[in-house]
Every structure is written in structure tokens, then in C-alpha cells.
């Protein structure tokens, strides 16, 4: 329980605009939990409520089993890394890192200009602080930068100093608000690695806000996706990818994005794409429009159609190293397109202009009802389009 986090019924509105509605969330000690969602979904606000920078209108925040709603950020024993690092520009890196410790261990009088020289114990405490700052700096390999001011550091270096400032108090909970979004692409990939590594070494709980699903997928042990102030889904990266709870989650997670084909549920519970049965059966639901989701790597292209199946023409072929991405237009409905990922292929197949039949394995398909919620597929009908090929 030592560094767990629980949120119960967190609700927040700014003026008349609701931002968060009744968020429940339990984070286990040592977890790396990402809060993801499109901008404006409330993820940053939720993080700031956990930090104590913002106060919820209703609900409770518990850190390590203790209700912290009345506590200041400092008393919550948390650390936070900001999007723009928020380093104090007039202080050197080491002064930045030392600040939380100074505030912790010295009284206000001992920190005031001039007055501080009166304290006999101050030099000893400051020596200890310098030592601890040195240790943290060593762990993050920023010792040579300690004397510099933030203005003289690169983005990646500032990032490390901000991390060091967060680490130095050895908090149980690290809150990170899009910490990598200001770095260039290459550095971002590298820092992803380092953060995961750091998380493993420290064993602390990380709450990580990002709008970048790749960051969330690669780093987290679990992902909580917010949409419109509500928790859309929480689960491991694999769960969100393989069993998205809603159309919103399905669309947000995965790159390139999932293909969504308009489909229809007939009275017998069979799913039709165009007028062709898709080989999926959902009993006990009212007939109506549904959406069929297919990940790009789950689409099969058939040069020879043994059965009637939706046809699509390749518009463009993109080289992505080991893979190729094909952009196709459906023949029946030229407005609907889809993207297919195939392994690199030298045989000269899949050229622009060629037409293929679209097939898929029924167990890889995702079905969403008219409200965009996931529908349980209870059975597969005898494969009639593409599925068995």
C-alpha cells in the first residue's frame, strides 16, 4: 500500500464547463500508469488534482491509503515533472535540484536573504544537501551540468535536471505532465528508454500524462484513457490494443489507426458489410448500423475471390522498412478507404491500381454498436467472406 494511489469519484468543473466526471481509478504500488486521451480530455487536470495544484469539486484522492485532499502538494510526498520543465531560470541546475530539500529541512528564516547567515546549523544541512544532489546527479549523469543555468542547457539536459529535482526528495509518487513533448523525435525515443529504466530502478509509482499513444504503449504497465472527462478504458497496453472498449479507444490506440468499416446488424444477428455477411454473429441485439474495426495488420487481401467479398483498389503503397502500408479505396463506396499493413514483398504484387478482395479472421475483428461501445461477438457464422481463405 506504501505508494498506491486511489481516486474515488473525482469530479471537476471550471465554471460551467465540466472537465472530469466521477473518475474512479486505483493505481498499484510501483505501477507505471499512463493517462492518455485527446487534448482537452481532462488528463492534465486529473494529474493536477492528484498533485494538489487543483482542487476537485467532489471525490477523494488517497495516496498510500491516506486521504490527502486537505494536504498541500508538498505534504503529499509527490514529485512532478512539467511539460516545460519549469526550472527556475535564475538558479543553477544544482540549486534547482536542491530547492525541495532546502525547503524541507531549513526553516523559512534560514532561507531568507541575509537572515540565513545567523543559523548555526545551516552550513551542515547544506553540506548534506549538496551531497544528496551529487548522488542524484550521478544517477542521471548530469554532474558536469550542475553549475549551469537552465538557459545554458539543451532540452534533453533540462529534462534530466527536472527529473533530478523530482527524484531528490525520494517521493513515492512521480507525476509527469507530457515531459517528452518538447523534445525532438530522436531524443524522445531515447528518453522513453531512460524513463522506463528509471522507473524500474526506483520502484516508485509513475503517473504519466501524454497525448502520444506510442509513448503510452511503449512505457506503461497500464493505460487509462480519458475521453470527454470520463474514463473510457483502463488496462494493459495489450488489452487496449486488442480489446478496445469503445470506438474512441480503438481509434486512439494504434498507428496507423484502426480501419472502421460501416456495417449493419440484421434481424438474425448477423453482421453485414455492404450486403455481404461478414461471418460474425451477435445474437440478442436489435438490428441497426454498427461499426466494424480492423487493425491494418489483420486485413487479408485476396487476389482470387472464391466467395463474394468487398473489393478495394490500391491507391498508394508506402515503404516502411520491414512493412509496407497499402492505402485502398473500397470499390462499392469510394469515400471509405482502409489501410493495410503487409510484410515487405518482392514478388511484385500489390501495385497501385490493382483490385483485391478484403478478408479478415473473424476473431480479429472488433464490433462497435451505434453508440460506439464494444459489442461482444458471441459466435462466428460459417465463414462466408474471406475469413477462411
Amino acid at each position, binding site marked *: 500500500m506504501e505508494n498506491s494511489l486511489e481516486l474515488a469519484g473525482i469530479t471537476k468543473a471550471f465554471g460551467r464547463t465540466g472537465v472530469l466526471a466521477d473518475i474512479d481509478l486505483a493505481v498499484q504500488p510501483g505501477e507505471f500508469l499512463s493517462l492518455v486521451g485527446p487534448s482537452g480530455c481532462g488528463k492534465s487536470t486529473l494529474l493536477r488534482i492528484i498533485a494538489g495544484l487543483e482542487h476537485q469539486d467532489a471525490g477523494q484522492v488517497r495516496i498510500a491509503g491516506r486521504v490527502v485532499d486537505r494536504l*498541500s502538494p*508538498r505534504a503529499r510526498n509527490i514529485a512532478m515533472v512539467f511539460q516545460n520543465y519549469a526550472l527556475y531560470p535564475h538558479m543553477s541546475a544544482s540549486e534547482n535540484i536542491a530547492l525541495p530539500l532546502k525547503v524541507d529541512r531549513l526553516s523559512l528564516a534560514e532561507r531568507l536573504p541575509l537572515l540565513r547567515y545567523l543559523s548555526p546549523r545551516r552550513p551542515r544541512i547544506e553540506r548534506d544537501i549538496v551531497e544528496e544532489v551529487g548522488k542524484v546527479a550521478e544517477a542521471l549523469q548530469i554532474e558536469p551540468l550542475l553549475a549551469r543555468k537552465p538557459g*545554458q542547457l539543451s532540452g534533453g539536459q533540462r529534462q534530466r535536471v527536472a527529473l533530478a*529535482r523530482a527524484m531528490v526528495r525520494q517521493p513515492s509518487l512521480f507525476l509527469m505532465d507530457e515531459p517528452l513533448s518538447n523534445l525532438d523525435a530522436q531524443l524522445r525515443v531515447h528518453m522513453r528508454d531512460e524513463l522506463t529504466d528509471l522507473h524500474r530502478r526506483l520502484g516508485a509509482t509513475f503517473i504519466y500524462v501524454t497525448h502520444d499513444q506510442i509513448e503510452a504503449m511503449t512505457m506503461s504497465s497500464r493505460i487509462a484513457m480519458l475521453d470527454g472527462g470520463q474514463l473510457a478504458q483502463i488496462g494493459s497496453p495489450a488489452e487496449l490494443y486488442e480489446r478496445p472498449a469503445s470506438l474512441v479507444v480503438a481509434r486512439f490506440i494504434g498507428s496507423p489507426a484502426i480501419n472502421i468499416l460501416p456495417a449493419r446488424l440484421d434481424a438474425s444477428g448477423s453482421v453485414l458489410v455492404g450486403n455481404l455477411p461478414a461471418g460474425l454473429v451477435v445474437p440478442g441485439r436489435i438490428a441497426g448500423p454498427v461499426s466494424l474495426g480492423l487493425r491494418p495488420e489483420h486485413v487479408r487481401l485476396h487476389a482470387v475471390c472464391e466467395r463474394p467479398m468487398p473489393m478495394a483498389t490500391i491507391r498508394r503503397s508506402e515503404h516502411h522498412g520491414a512493412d509496407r502500408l497499402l492505402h485502398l479505396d473500397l470499390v462499392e463506396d469510394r469515400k471509405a478507404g482502409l489501410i493495410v499493413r503487409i510484410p515487405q514483398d518482392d514478388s511484385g504484387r500489390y501495385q497501385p491500381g490493382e483490385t483485391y478482395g478484403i478478408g479478415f479472421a473473424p476473431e480479429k475483428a472488433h464490433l462497435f454498436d451505434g453508440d460506439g461501445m464494444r459489442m461482444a461477438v458471441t459466435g462466428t457464422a460459417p465463414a462466408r467472406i474471406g475469413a477462411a481463405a
Partner: protein
Amino acid sequence: MTALSLGAPDGRLLRLAWPGRDGIAGALFVLPATLLLLAIILAPLLCLLVLSLTDYEIGALQIRWLGLGNFEKALSDPVFRRAMGNTLFYVALVLPGGVLLGLLVALLVHGRTRSRAFYEVAYFLPVTATLIAMAAVWQFLLHPKLGPVNGLLRAVGFPETAFISEPSLLIPTLAVIGLWNLIGFNMILFLAGLTAIPRDLYDAAEIDGAGGPIDRFLTVTWPQLAPTTMFVAVTTSITAFKVFDTVAVLTRGRDGSEVLLYAIYLEGFQYFKIGYSAALTVIFLAFMLAFSVFQAFQLDRRVHY
């Protein structure tokens, strides 16, 4: 905020594509400004320097070369020394008062939401008001018999005070009016500085435990305002050093209120001792340049941020 920079924007590509064209356009565009620069700044400046070395007076039959004589005379001239002393005394009162009160008002106004507009207007109104007219109002306010200030003092049991005739009170009185005229201006500058402080820094301070009002001020506000404060201090010094209008209305430079600009005005344009007045102007210019150099130096240091 913009920083002084003598660097040129890179126009090389442009020049390759349009050879010679912006050379001609540029020269034409700056022609009027250059001529005026020569006519109303550089030539007068040169002329001033030459005059300051002579004993030229309007109506005098011949001009003599004095070298540094005028400056030597100034140093031993009791009127000039009093003017210099009074001016520096005035600056010494207005500078800290203007900066600290401007900062205090800005800090308090910055936290207001609904009443902010009212306070902005109230504090800024004296800046827009014509100082000469308002100096006449102050003269009346401070009138020993008729003015409400003395009326109030009498009512509370204090003796009547001659703010505008008692020599030792003249400079402090002028300084109060100067502050009244200046605080709103400084407040606006500080408010702009406060608005520019990133919210993140206050959040970080809160997380680091430095969330109390004093810690916030010392960790974030004051260091972040340092460039603004430096700028306000320099402009306040320059404005204070140029004190003239209130003197012209309230005292006309009589005993105890001689200030540098009024002395220059009297010597040059009332007594027509052009050479001597020019020398005093050169001394005045030296102070102006010193303030500006100090500011440029500060601007340079700010690059670290």
C-alpha cells in the same frame, strides 16, 4: 520584451535574388531620417560641445575660448552645486519609492479580478493628466491656509506646514508629487512583467514545498521580475533626473528647489549665458548616458535567462 541587438537580419539570399535593388530602396527610405538625425541631434550635439567650451552669450560682441573653464566654474558655483545636490536628493527619494510602491501596487492589483480595472484606472490617471495643471492643483492642496492637506493637519492637531515655501520641505514635497505622477506607470510595467511569469514555475514551487507567499515571492516572482525591475529603476531614475515641470509651476526654482534642468533653463534661456548653460547640459547628458549604459549592461546580462 525585446532585447537590444546590433545584429543584422540575414538578407544575403534576398540580395542574390534582387541585386542592388534594396540598396537603393534602403538608402531612399532612410534619407529623411538621416537628414533629420544630422540636423536635430548630431549637429546640435556637436554645436553644444563646442559652445560648452566658450563663454558665448547672446548679445556678446566676442566669443572667448575657455577650454574646461565652464566646467570648473560649475564645480565651484554654489547655485549649480545646490541644483545638483537637490536633483540627486530628489532621485534618491523618487527612485526607491517609485520602484517599491509600483511593485507593491502591481502585486496587489495582479491578484484582483473584478476590481482590477478600477485600480488600474485609479493609479494610472495621474500619468495621463497634464502635470502642469495638476501641479497647480497640488499647489492649492498644499496651500498653508486654504488647502485641505493643512486643513486636515490642523484638524488632527498638527501645526500648519508650509510645504511649498519651507526650503527644507521643497524637495520632499516635489518628490511626493513626482511619485504620485509615476507610480501608475511603474505599476503597468510591473503588471506586464507579472503576467509574463510562466504559471508552471509557481506550480513547481508549490510541488517543491515553496508554496507560501514569501517563498513564492523569493523563489519565483522576484527573480522573474528582475529584468523588469531593472528597467523600471532606470526609467524612474531618468524621469526623476529630468524633474522640471513641478518646479516651474510650484517654486520657479527658488531657494531649496534648484534642480539641474531648471538651472540649465535659467542660465541658457533667461540669462542667455549660452556657453555656461551648454556646459551644464553636457553634465546632464553625461548622467543620461551613464543611466543608459548601465541599462544596456543589464540587458546584456539578462541573456542568461
